[in-house]
């Protein structure tokens, strides 16, 4: 059934279709409409879930430690500061191997308030052990949530679905909402590998001394590798069942591209327009959209960029003192590659500043004019 809905509501429908058992959330703009819709779904009986209306994001995530350990499918959503408040618990939930799914509506964080789009909040969680998937459209959000449960419950790692505040969260698009039955087939009820049971009582977690902690951390790394290997299979099965295609990354007109633009999230959409316009003018430029960011699909990234003469990474995020986080990650991945094109790091759109197709063209033209990238990132559109 196709319906014009907002990005946040696409997430809510994904959660509903995934038959989540326990939801726990705390309101924060721009995440709120996800949980408002979920509250209504619970109240209206469309979703048979317990919704714990906690007193903070920290508790929102912590509640899911209890719920997921007790063997129930769980969901939460947050943004910006809320995500940062969860930070400790993110490490915990990943380490405890709890298959929680969370939507993070990327919102700027700093020493002043801003409620608009920036990905620094999610990217600050990249070392927690969570699987991170960046989305661009409402359909991708709905589908992404359903696929996230399949992935999470297979490899026993939590999954974060990240997307831009307002640009996606509050934008209405036409979304194909699947029927319940195929979703049920795609993700059967969650059965944890070890059940919390009274007949065979176990202790979950606890104190790991030096004799096992190191190995414990290594098993996390292995789980992430497993996720990387399994994600394409999830995508293939999704295509089989629902007809829509997803992969580790998405490429656009890169076949003959000399310059490849790398983006994640909503900037991808405007970048596509810019690529079309510049290709129309004979500039051989293509686009690589990052979807799975953690674990890093190293081979996939290298292969996509193996023919590029220049790589331009637009980051709507900032690792202060370094620059764009995606650029940094791409740089580190390509360093081990035989083909090492120059990487142009561009910071744009922080705190929800609009990035238009013209901005992207401007960025590309700027890069074309450069012989080699500067060490410092380019802050595009800065009021000078």
């Amino acid at each position, binding site marked *: 059934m196709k319906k014009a809905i907002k990005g946040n509501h696409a997430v809510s429908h994904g959660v509903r279709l995934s038959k989540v058992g326990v939801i726990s959330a705390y309101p924060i703009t721009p995440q709120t409409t996800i949980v408002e819709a979920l509250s209504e779904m619970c109240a209206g009986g469309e979703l048979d*879930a317990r919704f*714990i209306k906690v*007193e903070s994001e*920290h508790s929102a995530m*912590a509640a899911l430690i209890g719920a997921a350990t*007790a063997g129930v499918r769980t969901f939460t959503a947050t943004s910006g500061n809320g995500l940062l408040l969860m930070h400790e618990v993110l490490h915990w939930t990943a380490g405890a191997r709890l298959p929680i799914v969370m939507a993070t509506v990327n919102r700027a964080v700093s020493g002043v308030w801003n409620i608009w789009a920036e990905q620094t909040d999610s990217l600050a969680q990249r070392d927690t052990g969570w699987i991170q998937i960046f989305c661009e459209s409402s359909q991708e959000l709905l589908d992404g949530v359903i696929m996230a449960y399949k992935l999470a419950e297979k490899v026993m790692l939590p999954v974060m679905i990240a997307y831009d505040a307002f640009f996606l969260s509050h934008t209405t698009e036409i979304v194909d909402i699947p029927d319940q039955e195929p979703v049920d087939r795609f993700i059967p009820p969650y059965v944890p590998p070890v059940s919390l049971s*009274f007949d065979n*009582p176990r202790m979950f*977690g*606890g104190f790991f001394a030096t004799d096992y902690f190191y190995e414990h951390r290594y098993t996390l790394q292995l789980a992430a590798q497993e996720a990387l290997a399994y994600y394409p299979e999830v995508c293939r099965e999704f295509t089989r069942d629902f007809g829509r295609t997803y992969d580790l990354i998405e490429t656009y007109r890169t076949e003959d591209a000399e310059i490849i633009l790398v983006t994640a999230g909503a900037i991808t959409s405007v970048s596509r327009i810019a690529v079309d316009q510049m290709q129309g003018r004979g500039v051989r430029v293509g686009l690589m959209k990052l979807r799975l960011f953690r674990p890093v699909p190293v081979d996939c990234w290298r292969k996509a960029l193996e023919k590029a003469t220049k790589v331009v990474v637009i980051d709507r995020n900032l690792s202060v003192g370094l620059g764009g986080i995606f650029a940094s990650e791409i740089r580190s991945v390509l360093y081990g590659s035989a083909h090492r094109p120059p990487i142009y790091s561009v910071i744009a759109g922080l705190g929800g500043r609009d990035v238009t197709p013209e901005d992207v063209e401007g960025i590309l033209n700027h890069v074309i004019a450069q012989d080699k990238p500067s060490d410092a990132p380019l802050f595009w559109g800065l009021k000078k």
Partner: protein
Amino acid sequence: MQKKFEIPRQVLVEQDLMQPGITSCQGCAAPLSMKIALKALGERTVVVFPACCFAVFVGGYPYSSLKVPIIHCPFETSAVVASGAAAALSVRGEKDTVVMVWAGDGGTFDIGMQALSGAAERNENILFVCYDNEAYMNTGIQRSSATPMGAWTTTTPEGCIKEESKKDIEQIMLAHHISYMATASAAYPDDMFKKFQKARGISGMKFIHLLSACPPGWRIDPAHTIKIMRLATQTNVFPIYEVCKRPVSADTEQITEEWQYTINVFPEKNVPVGSYFKSQGRFGLMTDEMIQSTQKRVDRKWQELVEKAG
């Protein structure tokens, strides 16, 4: 004649959901309290441990000394982790279970307060137990907001012993309109057993405040744990009482006091607080003036309690 334990003998003798091998210090009151609590709650109990001594000595991976499911969680999250577990058990359709948080005073009075307050206000169907040893004992005896006035700790050393009163956690919890609030002490195991049994049968948020002597932290002989905890009650420093919600009649307009206070242990003789303080090394720096002012405060609080209990 001797007071008889009312704990059914079979439960006392056979139902041990806690096994030995735990690495608690000699004379620690916490495992003793847990033993009694689990006897009352039975095997369909989930225990949630935030960071605390118990979380360590219950057994390091891959060992557990409790024969009930345990969920470990971050220090400040126990009340909400328990809320999540309780919600999940209800989603799973598990009946007749209880999710019990077993948190120290730090995980209750201090860092655990926010999640606890949230869970209490939502009247989550959990049992939150604070085993209060009145300082951060696991990290080596640092002051907490549960540390009593006049106590020495490593962060309130000689020259700056704690001058502030202990936080009144019981009133804080009652201010959340929870379903059940009680204090208990392993020195009165019968009372403790009954309260855990009672709490198990009440839906909504239950809070039990346990006094839990810590021989190294209190600077006492491990053999005197129970004796000193008994003294805490006999001197009214730690009164043993419970507060239930009074059922409000629907056909009355009159709004009466919501709480039904019951004092469960009355001191048998009038013991001055000084004998409690002087029994412990941690109060060795307490001045006579402090003891006198504490006596007054204890007397006043006891009087208030007696009045509330009617």
